[in-house]
C-alpha cells in the first residue's frame, strides 16, 4: 500500500532546474526509500569580497531521495546529495579561476517549500590554504503531482 502511494507520488516526477528545461525522471523503488531524480541545478550568484567580485556559474548536481517511515509513521524525509564540483568561480577583476570539489548530504523533513542553505569552500587552483567560502541557498518546491522544482543562489557567508 505504501509503495503504491509512493508510486503514485513519483510516477511522473518532474524536476525543473533553474533556467533549464524540465527533466522527466522515473524513480527506482525500495522498501522505505524512493530514489528521485538526479539533476543539474544552474548556479547563479556572485560574491563581493574586499579585493574583487567573484561570479559563479556552472551547475550543482543534486540527487534526491524520498525516505518514508512506514514503521513509526514519522515525517517523510528528503535527502539531497549535492555535488558542487561543477561550480566554477571567476574573479571579475583578476580573471582568477576558482573551483571546489565539495559535496554535501542534507536530510530535511519533506515540505512543500523549503530553503536549504549549504556552505562550501572554493579555491583558486590548489590554494586550499587560502580557501574562501560561499553559501548556496537551494529552494526546494515539492508537489506530489509535479515533483520538485529546485533553484539556487550563491551568496556570501555572513561572518560569525
Amino acid at each position, binding site marked *: 500500500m505504501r509503495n503504491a502511494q509512493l508510486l503514485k507520488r513519483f510516477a511522473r516526477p518532474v524536476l525543473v532546474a533553474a533556467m533549464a528545461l524540465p527533466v522527466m525522471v522515473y524513480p527506482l523503488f525500495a522498501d522505505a526509500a524512493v530514489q528521485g531524480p538526479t539533476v543539474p541545478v544552474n548556479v547563479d550568484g556572485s560574491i563581493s569580497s574586499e579585493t574583487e567580485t567573484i561570479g559563479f556559474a556552472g551547475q550543482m548536481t543534486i540527487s534526491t531521495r524520498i525516505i518514508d517511515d512506514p514503521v513509526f509513521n514519522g515525517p517523510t524525509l528528503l535527502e539531497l*546529495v549535492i555535488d558542487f564540483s561543477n561550480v566554477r568561480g571567476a574573479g571579475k577583476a583578476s580573471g582568477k579561476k576558482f573551483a571546489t570539489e565539495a559535496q554535501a548530504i542534507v536530510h530535511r523533513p519533506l515540505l512543500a517549500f523549503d530553503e536549504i542553505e549549504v556552505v562550501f569552500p572554493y579555491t583558486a587552483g590548489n590554494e586550499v*590554504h587560502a580557501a574562501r567560502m560561499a553559501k548556496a541557498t537551494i529552494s526546494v518546491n515539492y508537489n506530489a503531482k509535479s515533483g520538485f522544482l529546485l533553484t539556487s543562489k550563491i551568496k556570501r557567508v555572513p561572518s560569525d
Partner: protein
Amino acid sequence: MYLPTNATPQQLRQAQQAQRNRQDIIKALSHGQVSRRDLLKWGLFTGGGGLALKNGLSPFVGNAYGEIPTGVPRSPLFGAAAFEWAMPRCDLMERKDISALSPAPQKAANTAPTKVAGPDGILVNGPMEGRPPGPIWAHQGWDLFAPRVAVEQWQKGAESCYDYHPGVTPQHNCGIDPSLAVKPCFHGRMPAQNAQSLWTFGGTVPPKLLLGRYGEPILFRHHNALPTKVTANNGFGRNTISTHEHNGHHGAESDGFTGAFFFPGQYYDYHWPIVHAGFRTINANATDPKCGAPDGNGGITKLPGDWRETMSTHWFHDHMFSFTSQNVYKGIAAMFNLYSSLDRGNEAINDGVNLRLPSGTAKDWGNLEYDVNIMLSDKAASGDGQLAFDIFNFDGFLGDMLMTNLAYKPYFNVERRKYRFRFLNASVARFFKLALSNGAPMIQIGNDGNLLPRAVQLSELDEMGIAERFDVVIDFSNYTDGTKIHLVNLAEHQDGRRVSKHLSLREAMSGKSDDPCVGRFLEFRVRGTTRAVDNSRDFSKPGGMNLIPNPDLSKIPVARQRTFEWGRGASQTTRDPVSSALGPWGVKTDGGSMLAADFGRVSAAPKAGTREIWTLVNGGGGWDHPIHIHFEEGQVLARDGKASNVPLWERGRKDVYRLRPGGSITITMQFRDWGGMFMEHCHNTVHEDNAMLLRWELDTSGSAVLNPLPTPIPKPTGVEFLPPTETLRTAR
C-alpha cells in the same frame, strides 16, 4: 523531547515523575532484578519494543493537562554557562616496562585463584584473569609479537585526578596546571560526580588517551575495580566489563568480545600487537620504509605488512553484552592514537615518508601540541547533578548536555597555525554534523581509524555516526589575536532513531532549536599577534592532498557475498540465559529471519585469507544505524547500489558504516592474520543492547583451530564453554 526552558511547574513535575518511573525500570534492569522479557510481559514495553505510551511513563504522550507531551526535564546546569570552562586535553595513559606487571603476563589466561565479586557482591574464589582459559583464548602471535609496552588501567568509580598527564605544557592546554587536582566534574560550577555515577579509566577525568607505535606490541592489563555489588551503580551500568579496542587488527581474544566479560576483582590481559595487516604475506621482509614506525631517533623501523593498511585513530570502550550503552555512557571510553612512519606525530621530520601532519616537533613521535583528541558525547544529569541515564524506548538515548572531552561547552585556546583534531563520536545514539561558525573550511584527512587516500576540503562535515572518527585539519593562521570561532553542531534530533533535520549554520546558531545539543558547543580562541611556527604539511602543494592510498584488493577473488539487513521485529530462536538477548532490533543474514542477538550463534564464518563483499541494508526508513564490523576494515564499494554515490570522504578504509535512513552500503573486506570470534553490530548502543548484534568468526587462522568455536560463558568462579547455540545455514 526535552522540555523547553519555559515549561510550567506542573509540566516539570509530571516530567520528573515520569522520568523517575523510567529510571526505576533501568535500575531494576541493571541490578538484574527484572529482565526485558518481564517488562514486555508487564506491558511496560510494547511488543514492538517501544516504551508503553502511558502517561506517567513515556515522554511522548500527552500529559494530564492536555496534549502537550510530557517531555523530559532538562539537566540542571548549576549556573554553568557556555565557553567559560577550558577544554582539557586527554590524560595520557602511562606506558610502562613489561617487567612492571605483577603477575607477569602469559600466553594463556592466568587462572591462579583470587577473590572475585560473586552474586550480591559476595567474594568468591575465581581465576584472577577473566580471559577465557585454555589454548583457544591464548594470545595469538604471543612469541612473534611479544609485548614490549605495558599499560595498566583500573576501571573504577569517579575520584579526583592527582596525576594528570596531558602530554603538553599548560600553554597548549588552556593554562591548566596539571599539578592541581582535577575534580571529576563536567564544569567548575557543576558538582563532582560520585563513584557510583561515573566509571572511567582510572576513575578520573579528562578521558584517557593511549599513544601506541607500530611494531611495539602493547599488553593492556585492565583491572576491574568497579563496585562488587551490582546495585552500587546509581541506577545504571553493569559492573562486569569487556574492553573492545575499536578498529584493532588483533586476535579475537584481545578484541573485547561481548561475551568475554570479567568481574570486579579480576583483570584481563589484552595483547595488541599493533601490526600492519598482511604482515604474513606482504612486504614480509620489511623492506619498505612506508611500512614502518618511528625509531625514536628520527629514523624508521621497517616492519612487515602492507603500508596502505596503516591506521591512526582508534578508541577503546566497554562492550559488555546488553549493557554497552550504559557502561560507555558512564565513562568507559578512551582514545588511542597509533603512530607510524607515515603518521609519526612529528611535523618537521621530512624524510619523504612522513606525512607531516600538524602535531609538533619536540619529540621523535607522538607530539600533541597541535594534534588534539576530542571526544564528543551527550550527557544528562538528574536534579543533584549526577550523571543520569534515561530510556524513552529502545530507539536510543539522547543527553541534553554536549560534552567535549567530558567538559560542558568549553573553550580551547589555539595559536595562529594549523591544528589536527581527531574527533570521536562517543555518544549513545546522537549523530553530529560539524561546521565552524564562520563557515570556514576544514580539511578532512581521515575517516574512522584511517587517513584518506585524498584529503577533502569541506565547510560542513558529513553526519558523524556513533563511534565514527573524523580526522580534520583546521587552519587558524589567518585570524587575528582574540578572534573567537565556534564549532557548531548542525544535526538536530527529536529522538534517538535518527537525525530529524540537518540545520543550516544560520538555523543552528539561531538558538531556536528544541534540541539543546544543537548550535555552538566549543569556542576556539585564537591567540597570537603573529603567526605561529608551522612545520606541518602544505596541503596546497601539488599532491599535498594525497595521503594513504587504499590497498588494492582487485586481484583477490571474491569468495562470498553476504547481505545483512538491519531492522525491527526480531525474533529469538535461542534461549541461553547468558548469550541470548531479547529486544526489538535484529539482523537478517542472507535473507533469513530477523534474529535478535545471541553471542552463541554463528551468523557468518568467512574463510581466513579470502575476500568477501558484504551489503548492509537498512530495513526501514525511520531510523539510521551506524554499523561497526570488528577486526577488519572495509572499503566502500557502493551506496544504494552505485559506486558514484560514495562521497569523497568515504573513499578510504572504514570500520563504521552509516546506512542512512532507507539506505544500503556495500563494502569489501579481506580476512587475514588473526582468528577467533568477532562481532558486527549497530553502534547506536541502545540498539546493540537490544539485540542488534551478531557474531561472526574466522576459525582457521592463528591458534583458534576448533570448528565451531565454543562460546565462553563467564562466571565469577571461572569461564565455562558451551557449543554454539546455533550456526546459521548460510554462515560457511
